[in-house]
């Protein structure tokens, strides 16, 4: 079965909706949680990548104090940036829809 949600959804929903063995509402909630987890993981992975590039020069035997401080600040700034981008993109989408 195509799609990103797995074949188990299709077969279980086919057999009986609300009276079937699985509650669609519960499954939707579980899917939402999985999506949120996936997004958090993606954010963390990209943040790690960017902050490593910004804060770590020549890799030493351990993370020194300056590097740790940089990483901490970088994390916060990356979150700020993510939020700014999210707001800006949302505004643009609303403007586009208003112009349609």
């Amino acid at each position, binding site marked *: 079965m195509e*799609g990103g*949600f797995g074949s188990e959804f299709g077969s279980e929903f086919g057999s009986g909706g609300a009276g079937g063995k699985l509650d669609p509402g519960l499954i939707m909630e579980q899917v939402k949680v999985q999506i949120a987890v996936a997004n958090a993981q993606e954010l963390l992975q990209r943040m790690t990548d960017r*902050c490593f590039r*910004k804060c770590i020069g020549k890799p030493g035997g351990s993370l020194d104090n300056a590097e740790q401080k*940089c990483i901490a*600040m970088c994390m916060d*700034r990356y979150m700020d940036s993510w939020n700014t981008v999210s707001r800006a*993109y949302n505004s643009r989408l609303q403007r*586009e*829809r208003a112009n349609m």
Partner: protein
Amino acid sequence: ARRTGGLRAAREGRGGPGTGAAMDAPSAAGLGGADPQLQRFIEVETQKQRFQQLVHQMTELCWEKCMDKPGPKLDSRAETCFVNCVERFIDTSQFILNRLEQTQKSKSAFSESLSD
């Protein structure tokens, strides 16, 4: 005309990142089967994910362009840069779609006259 149909659909908001109004009804129809509630859920979540993915992507791109050394806060110059960056990225995407559609149109007009 059918050749540019997909591009026109993208420009009208059913695919490009510039609008995000993409519903993609054909791809959601296979999932969820007969349950309209589930089908609607999938459409909504898919659209939300498309938005999220682009935020992830643009944050990374704009970070490289707008952030020098991470400081104690996001200063206003960097913030402005991020906002501009998002707008220009969407503009770029729309520009590419539009120009591609134009070059497709002129190509099909040319090949149509050839086949006569």
